[in-house]
């Protein structure tokens, strides 16, 4: 009996040791990125509407020149021109944000009428954009995954896609998610989008929607989602440069996601 007790005691001490070793507060993995977060919040960055450029890293002999990552909002591209980044294919550049050389790729499949997608967009994604996408750590891809049970989500996806192709993705996505409860009651997607754009911009968007030239891109997103397989929204897939993928289902709070992103970014 004593032997058993000694064994259990040793086991307990061992497990506590491992717990102490692994517990995040000991290592504080998010410390360094947190400083960068504060910096990025202190200096609001403009969001240029042109292609992504990353300056080459300076040689070791010139340590005083910091590497500058110019992060850009997605460039308006010609309809149906898809790109591939680090093995992630069929990316519509108008719905992708950040540096293509970022260590992480984050794909978010969402439906404009889904409440959890709204929650994710308004709380978590916005902070990820500010602190990870605009600092060159994450390349964010918005994938449309309108669910058939939502009457207006496909229309909303069409308008959002069209707005993205005239460089107004963020404005329209914000308007659609923030006013979700209103337009899902009335079905007034057009009015919601129009309120976020100038009349000239709305005219362009309307022309793109009516031309249906962007519909194949939405269909492509859905097809890719079904192969993942995405069976609910929001659905996030994180890709590392080494080819690892981490699916995250449902809403996730920013603080918890931040810890995980910091771990992935710190990975060699």
């Amino acid at each position, binding site marked *: 009996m004593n032997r058993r007790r000694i064994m259990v005691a040793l086991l307990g001490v061992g497990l506590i040791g491992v717990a102490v070793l692994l517990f995040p507060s000991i290592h504080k993995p998010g410390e360094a990125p947190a400083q960068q977060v504060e910096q990025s919040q202190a200096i609001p960055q403009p969001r240029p509407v042109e292609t992504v450029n990353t300056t080459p890293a300076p040689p070791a002999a010139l340590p005083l020149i910091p590497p500058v990552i110019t992060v850009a909002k997605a460039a308006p591209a010609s309809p149906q021109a898809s790109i591939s980044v680090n093995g992630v294919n069929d990316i519509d550049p108008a719905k992708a944000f950040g540096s293509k050389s970022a260590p992480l790729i984050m794909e978010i499949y969402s439906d404009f009428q889904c409440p959890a997608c709204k929650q994710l967009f308004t709380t978590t994604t916005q902070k990820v954009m500010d602190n990870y996408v605009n600092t060159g750590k994450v390349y964010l891809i918005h994938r449309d995954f309108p669910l058939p049970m939502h009457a207006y989500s496909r229309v909303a996806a069409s308008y959002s896609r069209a707005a993205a192709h005239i460089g107004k993705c963020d404005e329209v996505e914000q308007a659609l998610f923030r006013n979700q409860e209103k337009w899902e009651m009335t079905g007034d997607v057009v009015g919601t989008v129009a309120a976020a754009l100038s009349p000239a911009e709305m005219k362009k968007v309307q022309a793109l929607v009516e031309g249906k030239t962007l519909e194949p891109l939405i269909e492509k997103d859905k097809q890719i989602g079904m192969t993942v397989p995405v069976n609910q929204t929001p659905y996030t897939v994180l890709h590392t440069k080494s080819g690892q993928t981490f699916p*995250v289902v449902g809403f996730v709070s920013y603080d918890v996601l931040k810890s995980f992103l910091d771990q992935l970014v710190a990975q060699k």
Partner: protein
Amino acid sequence: MMQSSPFNFRRVFLWICRIVLAGVFLYAGSAKLLGWGLHLHPSISSTKLSLFYFALQVDSYQLLPPWAVQFVAHTLPLAEVAIGLLLLLGWLLPVWTTFVTLLIAGFFASVVRAYALGLQINCGCFAKPEPLTGLTILRDGLLLLLAVLMTVFAFQESRKPHPWSATSPEHS
């Protein structure tokens, strides 16, 4: 004679429950610690990554604040391994079976709540991404039933002298 036999039904059932639940807990804890579902190479850094990934699954239940999510995610897998080993060892069995029952009851309540709220999330039960469905509730319910029976039998057995012990009435 039957009552003192080491192979009576209660004792055999208790052993089966202990082995099954110890297996489940050891598998669940190890899978989370070693990132089995994520195809990671075993190392300290992959274990840390796996635990942070598990934190995302704990968070998706929307039950706890972020600090508590990290605490649960970083202690639960170790606790599961420890519980699995303790069930196999059989030391202070009534205490640990009660603890196991409470833990499984907690899991069951969380899963039922998430299902009732319509949260379409991953269960997070065994590290591997696994959607939370009615089958998850059924499985957790069966495990809870097993744990309750194991606890009851463990208490009943603990009141009796061990059939192989020198102090049993047959040997004295």
